[in-house]
């Protein structure tokens, strides 16, 4: 295709995930951006553009949050832009950065994603209430969990998936998270299916241990053109494919059992990466898992499993770190935490580290040449996909 530049990921940084951070959002951005620059061996002055991703202003309680965070992200006195597609934002931030460089406008771009959810009182849930239609939905007393519970139940019933199987996602990811140095205190752990099933029913079928937590954190990556990458590293990790797609916000007019928008986003990314058989050609996947069932639901949308077959792969151990298709080796949102935009970027960073063999205790057993990070967002609406390769 007619892109001016091939784009590589050169470095990544990630702050500790915290339920309540003392750092301000700007300070979190600085910490992540500084670590990403250090890992790339570059300085802020080398960055020709900066992109920022962060979810609704209502969490931080700062209006025009993109502008507010700019200094911490290094995004002042240079081209700077915020993108936002709900939960899909973190992965989209890399797509956003990618077209800055791929277009030929810039040789370097710093990508930062931040979320500080803890200031929102009485609970960040209260801000989520306002994503629903103010006329036809909010008067019913909605909360965020409803839409997930409704989708999860639909998915379970169409494919006859037992709750025990879905609990296995929590067990796997919470165990994987034990090896992540940034994991939020109290989130990863050794759990049994029974522990998950016995946890509090929040909005059935969603139990407490099937939901990712509220988190403060920031993440950053450095994207560069091929010219710069070849000068700076022997181990470039290329952005081979990007895809994004949005469905209608009339979510009660669609069948929620299958995320078509994720499929279209994945097909777009696969086409660009010249992938014809994703099950063979994708070696590991950081699939978006804000809720346990979402990992399975999204694997199907990503064409990594047939419809209704993702639970079988999970049960057979295929998606474990030592399996044929490791899924969420980082621990994901269920095992590390869920600072919305930063969580998506954490997934891209994990694929980067895995492909460079730098994931330490989290390194998957099989050799990996190509990996995928995906996020989802809005009213069961948006899919964002990035394929990285070496």
């Amino acid at each position: 295709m007619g892109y001016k530049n091939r784009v590589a990921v050169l470095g990544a940084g990630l702050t500790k995930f915290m339920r309540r951070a003392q750092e301000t959002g700007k300070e979190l951005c600085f910490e992540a951006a500084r670590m990403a620059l250090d890992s790339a061996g570059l300085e802020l002055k080398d960055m020709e553009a900066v992109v920022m991703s962060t979810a609704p202003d209502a969490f931080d309680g700062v209006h025009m949050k993109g502008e507010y965070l700019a200094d911490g992200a290094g995004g002042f006195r240079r081209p700077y832009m915020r993108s936002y597609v709900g939960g899909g934002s973190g992965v989209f931030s890399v797509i956003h950065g990618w077209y800055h460089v791929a277009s030929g406008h810039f040789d370097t771009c710093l990508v930062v994603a931040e979320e500080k959810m803890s200031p929102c009182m009485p609970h960040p849930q209260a801000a989520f209430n306002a994503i629903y239609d103010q006329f036809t939905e909010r008067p019913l007393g909605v909360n965020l969990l409803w839409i997930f519970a409704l989708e999860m139940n639909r998915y379970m019933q169409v494919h006859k998936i037992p709750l025990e199987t879905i609990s296995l996602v929590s067990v796997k990811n919470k165990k994987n998270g034990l090896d992540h140095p940034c994991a939020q205190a109290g989130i990863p752990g050794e759990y049994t299916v029974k522990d998950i099933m016995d946890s509090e029913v929040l909005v059935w079928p969603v139990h407490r241990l099937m939901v990712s937590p509220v988190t403060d954190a920031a993440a950053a990556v450095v994207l560069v053109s091929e010219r710069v990458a070849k000068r700076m590293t022997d181990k470039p990790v290329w952005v081979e494919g990007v895809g994004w797609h949005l469905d209608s916000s009339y979510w009660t007019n669609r069948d929620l059992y299958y995320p078509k928008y994720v499929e279209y986003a994945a097909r777009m990314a696969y086409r660009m990466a010249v992938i014809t058989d994703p099950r063979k050609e994708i070696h590991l996947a950081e699939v978006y898992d804000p809720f346990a069932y979402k990992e399975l639901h999204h694997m199907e949308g990503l064409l990594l499993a047939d419809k209704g077959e993702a639970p079988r792969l999970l049960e057979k151990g295929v998606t474990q770190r030592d399996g044929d298709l490791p899924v969420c080796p980082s621990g994901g949102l269920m095992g590390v935490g869920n600072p919305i935009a930063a969580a998506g970027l954490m997934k891209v960073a994990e694929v980067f580290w895995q492909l460079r063999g730098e994931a330490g205790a989290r390194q998957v057993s099989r050799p990996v040449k190509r990996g995928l990070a995906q996020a989802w967002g809005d009213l069961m609406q948006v899919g964002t996909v990035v394929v990285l390769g070496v």
Partner: protein
Amino acid sequence: MSHHLKEFPGVPLKDSDIQEGKVLTTRWEVKAEYAWDTGVALGEFFAGLKDGRILARQCDRCGRIVVPPRMFCEWCHRPNDRWVEVKDTGRVNTFSVSFVLWDASRVKVPSVPAVIEIDGCTPGVGFMHLLGNVGTTLEEILARVKIGMPVKAVWRPASERTGAITDIVHFVPREG
């Protein structure tokens, strides 16, 4: 892994750190109140609910009949064509059982949110509402509610209706 992670270990706080004043905080109450115009489609829809009728919109190009109504067909991307009164019965497309309120506080007796596919609309099309008369405990509710189950609207008495989605109290099981 990030080489310099140890430089910024993060400063996680406990709720007690704030309550006991170990760290300084500042508080801000957003004063953001809104008055949203319902617009043409939902204005008509709510007027219909006040009269005890559910109104949908139909597009002549694709034939779809949809609720909640809008004055455009998002698929054909053109103005849609007419109002259609649909039934106040339908089927449960999916449901859940909620023990959590909007502010994350808990309740003992759960509500039962559901997506109801409305009879008379294009198959698969509906809106979110609540189910009633299906029990007060999780066990009772799971024993009584099934996906695909036929339901009908229970209307507030005409004198109490305000032209709102809550003019329908909830949907209850019906013989189907």
